[in-house]
Structures are given as C-alpha cells and as structure tokens.
C-alpha cells in the first residue's frame, strides 16, 4: 500500500492551518490573563463553536463510528449521552458556577470552602481526568497517522502529533485556542457530513443500510448469514459483503443488549436471562457515567467564563447543544455502512487494529466507481480526525498546564512569582504534560477509543460532578465532606478503570500483551465474577452514589465547620448577576486574593 497523495495533502493542510493560527494569535495574546481565559471577550457564536470544537474529540469523530460498527446498538448510548451530559451541565451547574466567577474548578473549590488545601486536592483531579482523557486522543492520532503513512509504527504517530500540539499550546495559549477550536468545529462538521452524504447517495441511505441487517430468529451460523444476506440484497438493493466470522451476527448487533454490554456475562457462560439483566445494569452505569461526567470535564467548564455575562453563557450553551447534536447523528452512519460494505475491518488484517479507522477508510470505497473521489473524501475525513484529536488535546493541555502553572506554581510553590515567571512556567508545564501524555498514549493501542473516553467520564462523574453539584445546591457541605467524597469516589473509579484496562491489555496478542501479562490472572477472576467485572468496567453506578453519600454523612458530622459566610456564598452562586453581589463579595474578601 502506498501513501495516497490526496489523503496526505488534506491532512497536511489541516495541521498547517492549525499551527499557523496558533502562531498568528500568539502575537495577539500578551498578558497572563489572556493566556488563561482569553480576556473574557468571546462572542456567543465564536464561543459556542469553540466549545463544540473542543468537545468533539477523537472519540466522537472516530470512536463512535468504530464502536457502532463493532458493537451495534449499544454504542449509540455514547453520542446520545455525550450530548445529554451538556444538558445536565446547563441545568444544574453552569449558571451558578459562572456567577461565582472562578476561573477553574480548583478556583471554585478554594473559593467555596476558603481552603487552599482543597485547591491542591482538586488540582490533582484535573491532572488525573486529563491524562485519562488524553490517552484516547493519542490513540486517534496514532491510528490516523498509521493510516496515512502505511508502515509507520503506531507510537511514532503519537509522538509526532503530541510534539506538534504541545509546541502549539506552549506558544499560543488560550486565545489562540478559542479561534482554532471554533475553526475546527466547522472543519469537523464538514469532514463528517460531506463524505457521509456522498456515501449515502451512492450506496443507499441510513435507513436502507440498516434495513439490510435483518433480525433472524435462527442461531447465527455462517450458512444462515449468507442466506440472509442474499434475501436482503434482493429486498433492499444493498450489496452487502460477507461478514467475517469474527463479526457479531445481525440480530445481536442491531438489538439492544449486544456484545458491548454482555461481554462479561458471556465470558462467564451465564443464562440468557441473567445476561440480559447484567446488560441492563451495564447500560445504566454507562448512562450515569456519561451524563454526569460531562459536568466534570476540566476543559469544558473553563469555557463558560469566556462569555461576557450569564445570559450570553446560557445562549452559548443552547448553541452548543444544537451544534453537537447535529454532529452526533453522522458518526453512527459510518459504522452502519462500514458493517455492510467494509466488513474486512472486523478482522484487523488491514494493518491497524480494529474498527476505529472506519471513518477514515470507508470513503475509499468510492474509488471503485468514481476514481479519485474516494481518496479526496478520505483525505477530508482524515483532516477531520486531525482536527478532532488536535483540538481536544490542546484544550486538555491548556487546562492541565493551567492547573500546573496557575495553581501548583503560581499559588502553592511561588505565590510571589511575577507574571513573566508564570508565563515561562506555563510553557515548561505544557512541555512536561505533553511528554507524559505521549508516553501514556503509546501504551493504549489495543484499547477502543470510545471505551477509554467513557472511563475518563466515569472518573469525572465520581469526583467533580458530586463536588460541583452538592457545593452549588447544598449549603451544609463542609470542606472535609467534599474532599473525602470527591477523593474516595474519584480514586475508586480510577482504580476500577485501571484494573479493567490492564486486564484488557494483557489479552492483547502484540507487545502490549507481554508487558502486561502479569495481569492475566485478573481475566480468570473476571470470568468467575461477571458482576464485579461490569462494576469495574463501568464504575459510575456505585461510585457516584458512594461519593455523594460520603459527602452528606461527613458534612453532617463536621457541620460546625460550615464556612461562616455561607449565606453570602450561596447568594453569589444563585442571585442574578445584575444585583452586583459579586463585587460586594470580592470587596469583603480582598486580602484573600
């Protein structure tokens, strides 16, 4: 296989435009506050596009399609809950947090409880969640580069992309990122929608493609599949290619409670009834993780502060919901068409593992009929993929670097540092974090992109979400309650997710399997305890309630330590900004800042 010039050109253009915009805006952002929140002067349209651009990660662009192709119906929960999570954020957290006027979650944690110690704890979680969320982005980068340059090892792609973005962030800062993010939303929208419309026009639309997957009552065997495929081809005019034995059968794939949610129970050889019950549990836990986790993603909340006022922040959120909602209709279509027309991806013989590359590869089908059109469109989706992991990775890098430079260095280590020193620290921290992210990213090739993102959401759901939700709506919270709840919930979810990951990596047949082979006894344990496996793979269903319960119990026990000015704090959180309470509050607290 050779390098396709069209694919290379389009990807290169995206990368260069991104870098150019970073450098161009670097000249414009001079002061330290420019770096952190873009001077709070971003219009609704720009900001909504930028938030959406940041939110649509490699998981949205590549991962959903890949997972729909490999697991079918159950994977649809991901795009839906990614969008719904935003609604939850809007309903309970966005408004109050904005009124409180803290730059970051650690700022909020410190302001709400008057505790610098708590800030340190909260900062740790920015880094934990951030690193978990960068891993799938890095995998997206590795897969895409290995697709563009056949033969390039996976890790080389990770290193290359990591280095480029790190440099960009270190030089541009957030102002640059706002512009770049907004541009990248539209790039992604174009890159996902245009190729899919062309594909649907040529090969049959969404519903027709799905119709080809007939639910048959017979047990799936190779022979019956061929029969079904024949009858379907006659009925719906879609020329399906034969599915390899590795692919799930039609009836399992298209119905709820398919391979994604039943894997653990199947491995334990449970009866179909029990399997279905476990699968329901898995589904609910996944929903909780994704819906609550959005509110806890460190790089999303910061953006609410770049609106000029509360009404603008709300309008922005409405637009974000619309922008991401429209986007999320498209990726599953790639998965559906990929299953019918490119089933060879199931076997992973084409070089890179798995179905995660379906978005990149599917348009090349058109080459059979229309010459280079397929390559051009594949170039477009590659460009979109670049936009996806580059934008999310830079957003995360800015948040994590901000946490290190602004919190750890600026507040804890050297409170008397000058703005210049902090700016220099921002750059050093960016390089440091970029490096760690690259190292982590090169380990995760065998894991599915979407799956890893789900885990990052679960950790956020068990740590930040309870903290924000309870602190905003319950005045009885104390620092101790908040800290213990957040730490316990978050660390439990983190441990559970890590355990699942290392046991999955131990199953890999490549080099990763050898590195992690020490964890393979874990897989035997999972086979005997499918319930535990599900609860570890999707920890949100127990970790979120655990965290909230701990917060309530410990806050009740330490109720004497509720901050004295709690009523004023709650007023600032909830009273309309026009009443000017924030100014009053800041004047009272002048020495603290």
């Amino acid at each position, binding site marked *: 296989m050779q390098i396709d010039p069209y694919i290379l050109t389009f990807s290169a253009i995206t990368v260069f435009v991104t870098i150019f915009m970073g450098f161009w805006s670097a000249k414009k952002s001079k002061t330290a506050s420019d770096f952190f929140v873009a001077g709070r002067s971003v219009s609704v349209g720009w900001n909504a596009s930028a938030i959406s651009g940041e939110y649509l990660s490699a998981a949205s662009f590549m991962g959903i399609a890949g997972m729909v192709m490999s697991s079918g119906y159950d994977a649809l929960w991901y795009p839906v809950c990614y969008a719904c999570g935003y609604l939850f954020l809007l309903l*309970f957290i966005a408004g109050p947090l904005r009124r409180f006027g803290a730059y970051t979650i650690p700022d909020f944690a410190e302001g709400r409880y008057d505790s610098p110690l708590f800030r340190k704890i909260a900062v740790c979680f920015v880094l934990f969640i951030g690193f978990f969320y960068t891993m799938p982005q890095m995998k997206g980068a590795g897969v895409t580069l290995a697709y563009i340059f056949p033969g390039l090892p996976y890790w080389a792609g990770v290193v290359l992309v990591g280095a480029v973005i790190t440099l960009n962030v270190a030089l541009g800062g957030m102002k640059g990122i706002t512009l770049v993010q907004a541009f990248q939303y539209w790039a992604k929208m174009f890159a996902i929608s245009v190729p899919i419309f062309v594909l649907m026009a040529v090969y049959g639309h969404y519903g027709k493609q799905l119709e080809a997957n007939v639910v048959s009552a017979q047990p799936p065997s190779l022979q019956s599949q061929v029969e079904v495929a024949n009858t379907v081809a006659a009925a*719906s005019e879609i020329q399906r290619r034969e599915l390899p034995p590795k692919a799930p059968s039609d009836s399992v794939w*298209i119905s709820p409670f398919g391979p994604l949610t039943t894997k653990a129970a199947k491995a334990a050889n449970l009866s179909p009834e029990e399997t*279905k019950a476990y699968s329901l549990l898995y589904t609910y836990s996944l*929903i909780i993780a994704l819906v609550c986790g959005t509110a806890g993603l460190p790089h999303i909340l910061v953006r609410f502060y770049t609106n000029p006022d509360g009404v603008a922040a*709300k309008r922005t959120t409405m637009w974000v*919901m619309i922008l991401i909602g429209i986007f999320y209709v498209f990726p599953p279509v790639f998965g559906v068409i990929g299953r019918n027309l490119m089933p060879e991806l199931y076997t992973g013989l084409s070089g890179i593992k798995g179905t995660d590359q379906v978005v990149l590869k599917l348009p090349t089908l058109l080459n059979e009929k229309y010459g280079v059109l397929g390559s051009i469109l594949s170039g477009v989706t590659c460009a979109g993929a670049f936009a996806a992991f580059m934008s999310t990775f830079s957003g995360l890098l800015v948040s994590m670097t901000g946490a290190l430079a602004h919190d750890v260095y600026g507040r804890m280590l050297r409170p008397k540092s000058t703005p210049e020193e902090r700016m220099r620290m921002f750059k050093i921290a960016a390089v440091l974090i970029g490096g760690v992210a690259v190292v982590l990213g090169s380990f995760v090739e065998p894991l599915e992109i979407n799956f890893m993102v789900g885990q990052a959401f679960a950790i956020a759901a068990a740590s930040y979400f309870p903290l924000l939700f309870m602190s905003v709506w319950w005045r009885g919270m104390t620092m101790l309650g908040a800290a213990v709840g957040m730490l316990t919930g978050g660390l439990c979810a983190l441990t559970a997710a890590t355990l699942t990951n290392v046991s999955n990596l131990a199953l890999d047949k490549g080099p990763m399997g050898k590195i992690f082979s020490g964890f393979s006894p874990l897989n035997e344990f999972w086979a005997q305890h499918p319930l535990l496996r599900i609860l570890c793979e999707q920890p949100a269903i127990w970790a979120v309630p655990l965290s909230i319960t701990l917060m309530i119990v410990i806050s009740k026990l330490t109720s004497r330590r509720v901050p004295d000015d709690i009523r004023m704090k709650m007023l600032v959180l909830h009273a309309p900004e*026009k*009443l*000017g309470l924030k100014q009053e509050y800041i004047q009272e607290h002048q020495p603290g800042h």
Partner: protein
Amino acid sequence: MSSPKPDMHSEAFLHSLMRKQLRLSISCAAAFLIVLLGLPLANYFLPELMSKRIFGFTLTWFFLGIGFFPAVWCISFYFIRRSIALEREEVEEVVGRGKGEGEKKG
C-alpha cells in the same frame, strides 16, 4: 459600594431564590431522565415493539440515533427561556423594593 439591602441579604430571599431555581432545574431534568432512563427499560420489557421497523430503522435505533437530539434541544430551550425570565423577575423584585438605586453596577 451599594449598601446591603436587607431584602436581598435575608434568609427568606435566598431560600426562595434557590427553591425557584432548583424547581425549574429538577422539573427539566425529570422530563429528560424519564426518557433517558425509560428507554433501556422499554428495550428490556418490550423488545418486539422496539424492534419494529420504520424507514428501515428499528424503532429503538431511530429514537436513540436520531430522535433524541431534538428532544434535548426542546428541553434546553425551555429551560433557558424560563431561567432568563426568572432572573429578570428576581432583579425586578429586589430593585422594586429597594427603589432601584445603585443596582446596575459592574
């Protein structure tokens, strides 16, 4: 520098403020959670109905893959309109009683 309004800083004001906001948020969240959490149950208990075909989609696929997003937009549109109105009412309430001086600072 506005002198604290007894009205604004009273326990009763904060209480009613939070109550009103929370009621709005919870009613919107309830509408959306019923749909979101109800769908797996429908899949579990009514598999035949949910696998009926419309335009080639199974009913449940159609709902989850396409129909869900407009529903979320409706809820968030309603919430945003109501919450902006709610804030305006609250400002009017305070400004009305406090004769409205010095409120628009910042």
